[in-house]
């Protein structure tokens, strides 16, 4: 197993900066997810680590060895592609045996390893089939088996679950996590699905437009997003944002918009005031950190029920403040009607405030 270090990694396609100044360290045996919207450079990063793309600038280290210019075959990597990329002309057995045959391993060793990996992934019944005769989930497991058979130091996965149906995806999520922990192979996992990243990874690197936005554990990303992009990307339904400004009052600070005023308290207000670069700030609150009240209370925001989305376990209430719609999660036993007046009480310990101009988190 290896640790991976990316130092000032850049990849330009003509004038397009697909990956720009990326610095990342992945520890030995760690499961790291590269998360971001499509076109953010996460797959490009993965292909550079695999050695398929040559970086325009920067270095890649496996442990202390500079592998930047090594061809893919010398890096001992196992890779699973979004499309699975099985060899259609070979049987499942030969697909799994292919990397071992290239290593010129003896026949009995290959046979033993293929059967062992096939058993681990529960595809030992399918060894004689051709890829075309497999279902999506089976193909995916064959692709995993092929990557595992060569006993790689590093496991790369490029959205391996995105072609599976929803139920299988949830099952495979846990399965992959178990496998990774069991085998202890350093893993880099590319995905655009924040639920996948949050549920599987030890650490998540959020990328946008080729740049690293934040790198941390799922809890850090959720609890302390470093900027507006990460705050909006992590969490479902996403965080609500309200633009406004800070107004100083005697013994208090108010967050003021056209629709409402919210008291921040002295301590929080001082912090915000110190961190502000410009006069405009953005208040962020997660749907799950709001309480819906039927009657007005002190320091609440008046709103109207707009649409109700029942999910069984809880309900998502779309509320209207002025003419903007926000999402709030409420317990399922609450009775609300569209058009009804309600009051929102924010959990003030869990609000986020961002600078409008720099989009960086102030608190």
């Amino acid at each position, binding site marked *: 197993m290896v640790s991976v270090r990316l130092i000032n990694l850049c990849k330009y396609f003509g004038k397009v900066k697909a990956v720009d100044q990326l610095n990342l360290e992945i520890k030995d045996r760690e499961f790291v997810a590269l998360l971001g919207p499509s076109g953010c450079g996460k797959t490009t990063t993965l*292909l550079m680590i*695999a*050695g*398929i793309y040559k970086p325009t600038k920067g270095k890649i280290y496996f442990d202390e060895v500079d592998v930047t210019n090594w*061809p*893919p*075959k010398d*890096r001992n*990597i*196992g*890779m699973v*592609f*979004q*499309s*699975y*990329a*099985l*060899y*259609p*002309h070979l049987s499942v057995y030969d697909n799994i045996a*292919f*990397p071992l045959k*290239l*290593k010129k391993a003896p026949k009995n060793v290959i046979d033993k390893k293929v059967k062992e990996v096939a058993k681990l992934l529960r595809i030992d019944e399918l060894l004689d089939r051709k*890829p*075309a005769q497999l*279902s*999506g989930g089976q*193909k995916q497991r064959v692709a995993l088996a*092929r990557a595992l058979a*060569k006993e790689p130091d590093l496991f*790369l996965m490029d959205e391996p679950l995105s*072609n*599976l149906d929803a139920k299988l995806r949830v099952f495979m999520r846990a399965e992959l996590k178990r496998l990774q922990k069991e085998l202890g192979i350093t893993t880099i996992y590319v995905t655009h699905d924040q639920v996948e990243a949050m549920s599987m990874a030890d650490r998540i690197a959020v990328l946008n437009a080729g740049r690293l936005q934040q790198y941390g554990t799922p809890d850090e990303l959720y609890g302390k997003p470093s900027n507006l992009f990460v705050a909006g990307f992590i969490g479902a339904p996403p965080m609500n944002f309200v633009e406004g400004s800070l107004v100083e009052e005697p013994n208090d600070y108010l967050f003021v918009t056209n629709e409402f005023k919210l008291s921040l308290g002295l301590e929080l207000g001082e912090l915000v005031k110190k961190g502000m670069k410009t006069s405009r700030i953005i208040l962020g609150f997660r749907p799950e950190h709001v309480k819906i009240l039927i009657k007005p209370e002190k320091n609440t925001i008046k709103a109207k029920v707009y649409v109700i989305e029942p999910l069984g376990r809880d309900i998502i209430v779309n509320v209207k403040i002025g003419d903007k719609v926000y999402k709030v999660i409420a317990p399922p036993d609450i009775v609300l009607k569209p058009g009804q007046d309600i009051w929102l009480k924010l959990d003030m310990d869990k609000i986020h405030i961002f600078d409008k101009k720099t989009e960086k988190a102030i608190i």
Partner: protein
Amino acid sequence: MMGVKEKKMKAGRGYILHTILKYIVVILVAVIPLIPIWCMYLWLISQSFSGRVILGIVPSNFTINNWRFLWAPIKMGLKEYPNIWPITINTLFLALGTSGLVVFISTLGGYALSRMEFKGRTTLMEFIIALHAFPAIILLIAMFIILNKLGLYGKGIITLMGIILIKAGLECPMASWIIKGFFDSIPWDIEWAALVDGCSRLTAWRRVILPLILPGVGAIAIFSFLSGWSEFLLVFTYVKDETYYTLPVLIYHLIGEFKFIDWVMLAAIGLFYTIPTLIFFSVSQKVLLRIYVGGVKG
């Protein structure tokens, strides 16, 4: 009043009639153009086994005498032609040589055109298409000079090799273009997977990519084989020694002896000439039809 059942039946009858008519038209259109071709082949086959042809059309008297060229030299009037077997081997040599060379060059060239980034790639591809605007015949004299300078003219089998080079040279651009399309259809993921699994680019090409484009390889192999097999002009122009004739040139010379022409034997030779083509086609047709589906994505 007409009942619903009756209405349905009437509509059903109309539908059946319509279908029958449709099939009749389709069959007529599909079969009629084939009839003359079938007739000609039938005629060729029956001619080659008949002793006498009444009015030049109706065969009679079954004989295998027309096929005597298989075991005896061909005599026409006073002239005696070489045995057919060495000539067939010459033709096969030319056709297989061309086919082999074309497959080798264009699978590599097509891969480069499809997969590699290099300066002037687009220009090269446009140039390849433009090459086809010119008929090969205008190169006849220039090529003669080149063959001569290279010492490939008038040297028997060596000249045939020279012709293979020319033939392959003429076939390669189009073949590379065709095979490029097949390479284009192979997703990058599969090649990348092979690279990560431990292949060099060349091994990936040979062990993973090439097996996937076998239908394409089959196609260019057939086309270049047929083109080599039926090559007339180059052999006719450059080969002067009868021992190194190919079948098309031999048949041409046989027709040339119009005074002593033996039509029935010519039919037999014509039939003989098509046999390897049929065999080659039926073998490679299987490859052509074996197209893989479903290795990538669900």
